[in-house]
């Protein structure tokens, strides 16, 4: 359906974003439950989700807090997990960069995997969209995801205190992360980054203060970037031949 008004742009975004509730709902629920297991009370878990609004960074911080990691390392590691949103922000700038500052600030807060992935495709395919239509679409994609994330955290935190330790819920976090990462490996360079990071992370657990996570993450990033360069060079080499 063609987008003709700002209002229809918002609702198009809303409809496109709605299915992602099936992802952000369970993850929010899980965050609430694990936060309660870690000893956070309901308002703490809710403020955490509301103010940070970055699932993978929240899970990382929660995990490291339970391993008695120094505060600075927790912050650096959790923000490192979230570095990808800086890339999203950079790639949305050509489309939304002309908006007033307060709108850009709202857009920044709402820059998450789902809103970015939907919007960038929409903007690239519809260059005739006006700035206000683009913003409306972007905010619309979060119409379900953001409230869903908060509500799910709240419910999870309420339920979490009832879950006995014997259920072994701790293992749900690695499984949830694995489910998230599998579909992210779109190119061979992504796969290289992933396995280089894993191969470094296991021996690097010997490092103090959970520093191994940052070291392994950096090794993985560099491996991915190098693999990308190498694959590109081989491609252009072949095309020239």
């Amino acid at each position, binding site marked *: 359906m063609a987008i003709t008004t700002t209002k229809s742009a918002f609702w198009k975004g809303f409809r496109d974003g709605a299915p992602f509730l099936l*992802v952000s709902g*369970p993850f929010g629920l899980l965050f609430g439950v694990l936060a309660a297991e870690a000893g956070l009370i309901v308002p703490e878990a809710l403020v*955490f989700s509301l*103010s*940070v609004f970055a699932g993978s960074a*929240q899970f990382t*911080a929660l*995990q490291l807090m*339970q391993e008695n990691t120094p*505060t600075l390392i927790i*912050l650096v*590691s*959790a*923000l490192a*997990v*979230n*570095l*990808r949103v*800086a890339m999203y*922000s*950079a790639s949305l*700038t050509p489309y*939304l960069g002309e908006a007033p500052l307060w709108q*850009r*600030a709202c857009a*920044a*807060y709402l*820059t998450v995997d789902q809103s970015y992935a939907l919007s960038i495709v929409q903007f690239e395919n519809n260059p005739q969209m006006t700035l206000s239509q683009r913003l409306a679409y972007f905010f619309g994609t979060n119409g379900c995801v953001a409230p869903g994330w908060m509500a799910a955290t709240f419910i999870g935190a309420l339920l979490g205190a009832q879950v006995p330790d014997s259920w072994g819920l701790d*293992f749900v976090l*690695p*499984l*949830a*992360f*694995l*489910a*998230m*990462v*599998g*579909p*992210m*490996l*779109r190119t061979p*360079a*992504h796969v290289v*980054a*992933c396995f280089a*990071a*894993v191969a470094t992370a*296991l021996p690097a*657990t010997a490092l103090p203060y959970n520093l*191994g*996570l940052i070291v*392994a*993450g950096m090794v*993985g*990033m560099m*491996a*991915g*970037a190098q693999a990308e*360069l190498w694959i590109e060079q081989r491609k252009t080499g072949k095309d020239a031949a």
Partner: protein
Amino acid sequence: MTQAPDPTLLWTIIIGLAVGSFALRFAFIGLMGGRTMPAWLMRHLRYTAVAIIPALVAPLVAWPTPTGGTPSLPHVAVAVAVFALGYLTRNVLIAMGAGACGFLLLFLLH
């Protein structure tokens, strides 16, 4: 349930992360204007999530918390299956469903 975290630590983390993740998101759209990022930086940023998340997960799978850190073949098997399904189907929902089934299986085996 584990002991509640120290409130100072918890709120330092929450506020630090809130400010930090907003700064990461605002950095470019808010301050860079129309300027483009250096290619080498974008190239590294592309691989942050797929490097750091597996680096976090690998030790948790190799030495799972529910067994008290003793390596366990069923845990590794479930983790590999969830990862492989996610990779092959490119579908988070299918992978999450597999994760839920796998978790139930571990729970019943236990």
